[in-house]
């Protein structure tokens, strides 16, 4: 205990130094003058609490960690039923989930469906980045650039050429994939951190260009009035544009804005199901294995005869195309896009989703995306603290469980041994 006293005092002192000025004293701007005031009693209470807590924690660190060792660690995998049962249940489970996804929106409020649509966008983005970071191990910090390309493709094509959502969707994916390829070429030789920095640079360059090219992209004011997707030509607006009909007029029912919301949600579900299916199949193909070989050891990969150029480019291209789809849908859903939606923070959030979910694990990424989007909404009163908690959670998750929620398991077949 005595040996722990000095470190405990030191830690408490550090905590006090960290908080006394920056939290304990507030800068206040009264018009033209700036003054300092001591923070209120409650804040000082928190500071005191923090100091004492750190002191006690450090003091009793030894007994506490011994206690923690003896606590059973929850094994998420053990919660699931055993293997043969799982295999039999799987198709039923998948069918249940898919049916549930399609039926559910008709039963809940508009806000919930809206939130679900946003979650599905992040699921798509997470799965796309998962290909690059999770499967291929290429650290991409500028993923949001492809997202932006997809969104602006639809916005610009819709505004200047009047093309519909369904036409623009594959175009957006294609254009984003092209950009992915273009980005992939220069970074072929780079490794690890350098790759991360260059992709970060690219992401920022794209954002700044979008911000400054006002004549075409509208600059900081963005592009508004983007059309929503139509159902075989039927619009979901209150009033139809020239030459087309609205959904509610066609079916003879009164206008209800929740029709639009549910339709958007269903489109999102279709896109996500498509994404999951495609990625699943590709993962089982040779290229999927090649990605993982690249992630594990690039030099060994090369010495075995695999061409890293093709592998890296395919990862970037495919990952980017999914971001393009997500971007196109995002633009359609919001009706308005601006460069502010495509900052580095978005890339960081998507990266966090992939890492928190367990790199390479599709189910983990989906769960993480759901958690990241829904939890802030549930804690609406903590709106102020949302970003703070986001940062804190990122740090804590890396300290506690760096392999993610559901670490990846390679899809494999087990031979039955009788």
């Amino acid at each position: 205990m005595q040996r722990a006293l000095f470190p405990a005092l030191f830690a408490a002192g550090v905590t006090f130094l960290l908080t006394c000025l920056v939290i304990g004293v507030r800068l206040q701007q009264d018009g033209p003058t700036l003054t300092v005031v001591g923070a209120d009693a409650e804040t000082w209470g928190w500071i005191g609490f923090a100091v004492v807590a750190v002191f006690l924690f450090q003091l009793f660190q030894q007994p506490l960690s011994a206690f923690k060792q003896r606590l059973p660690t929850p094994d998420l995998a053990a919660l699931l039923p055993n293997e043969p049962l799982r295999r039999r249940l799987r198709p039923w489970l998948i069918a249940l989930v898919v049916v549930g996804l399609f039926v559910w929106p008709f039963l809940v409020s508009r806000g919930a469906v809206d939130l679900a649509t946003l979650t599905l966008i992040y699921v798509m983005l997470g799965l796309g980045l998962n290909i690059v970071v999770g499967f291929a191990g290429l650290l991409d910090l500028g993923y949001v650039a492809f997202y932006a390309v997809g969104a602006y493709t639809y916005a610009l094509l819709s505004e200047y050429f009047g093309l519909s959502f369904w036409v623009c969707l594959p175009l957006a994916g294609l254009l984003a994939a092209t950009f992915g390829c273009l980005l992939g070429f220069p970074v072929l030789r780079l490794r690890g951190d350098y790759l991360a920095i260059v992709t970060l640079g690219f992401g920022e360059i794209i954002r700044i260009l979008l911000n400054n090219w006002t004549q075409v992209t509208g600059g900081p004011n963005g592009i508004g009035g983007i059309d929503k997707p139509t159902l075989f030509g039927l619009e979901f607006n209150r009033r139809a544009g020239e030459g087309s009909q609205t959904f509610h007029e066609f079916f003879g029912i009164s206008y209800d804005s929740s029709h639009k919301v549910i339709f958007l949600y269903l489109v999102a579900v279709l896109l996500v199901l498509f994404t999951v299916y495609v990625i699943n199949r590709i993962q089982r193909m040779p290229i999927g294995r090649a990605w993982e070989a690249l992630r594990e050891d690039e030099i060994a990969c090369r010495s075995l005869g695999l061409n890293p150029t093709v592998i890296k480019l395919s990862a970037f291209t495919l990952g980017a195309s999914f971001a393009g789809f997500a971007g196109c849908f995002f633009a359609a859903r919001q009706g308005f896009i601006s460069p502010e939606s495509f900052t580095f923070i978005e890339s960081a959030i998507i990266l966090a989703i992939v890492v928190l979910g367990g790199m390479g694990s599709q189910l983990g990424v989906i769960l993480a995306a759901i958690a990241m989007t829904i939890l802030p909404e549930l804690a609406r009163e903590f709106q102020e603290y949302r970003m703070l908690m986001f940062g804190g959670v990122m740090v804590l998750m890396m300290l506690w469980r760096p392999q993610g929620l559901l670490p990846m398991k390679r899809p494999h077949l087990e031979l039955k041994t009788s």
Partner: protein
Amino acid sequence: MSETTLYVLQQLINGLTIGSTYALIAIGYTMVYGIIGMINFAHGEVYMIGTYTAFITIIGLLTMGVGSLPIILLLALVTAVIISSTYGYAIERVAYRPLRGGPRLIPLITAIGMSIFLQNYIRLAQGSRDLAMPALISGGIQFGDPEVFEVSLSWMQLIIWGVTLVSMTALALFISRSRLGRACRACAQDLKMTNLLGIDTNRIIALTFVIGAALAAVAGVLLGLYYGTINPYIGFMAGLKAFTAAVLGGIGSIPGAMLGGLILGVTEAMTAAFFPSEYKDVVAFSLLVLILLFRPTGLLGKPDVEKV
């Protein structure tokens, strides 16, 4: 002298000023990367905290009636350095040390999370609005031809140059002459070996973070006085630019960080001089990308040989 020459000289002065501050912050990035191979994304926020601390100290002292400007500035500098260094130390101890030795992606995520956390922490503590302080050091010298173009060099700019020069010289002397400095260099060369030779590498790594944070705090004080306004988000952009500077000069090399900072500052100023100023930032990032594509180790860095 002709008008263009004077104009270019003015932009050069501006560029060197901002470049020196980039250099100060860049050193933090480069030292940490050199020793543990990690990009400390939270470094920009440490700079921001330094600026806030400086503001608090200065305004606090002014409110208390302290009149002497040199004392106020000195105290602000000392306080900012102490508080920022504490933050640098605490961040390393809490968030990075437990993750050392693992895959490289994990500390990167932690660093990004730490950066977001600190930004919002200050935002909640001090408010998200801009806070503005009256100019404490104003005036300067004007030279050149009033008919053609007058170049102005403010006292604040001279102070920035002076303080930066002193700090960098002090750092260079420390690294090359002192025992601890030698230990730092040894750790940067080969961490495991240094450990085997009996040097407490944990201490040295902590010291590296502290030095980087201290220099960032100095930059924070200088820029706080120079611009006069702060908000919780200045750390991000400054950090990104400084990071570009560090990479430009060769990440891992301290003279590289200094050189990179100055080059970046001057390039930005020259771009803004002859093109619309909104493209300043594009230049910074394009420079970063180009350097990494064609000379990834930067101007003064050593080629990184990957061993199998």
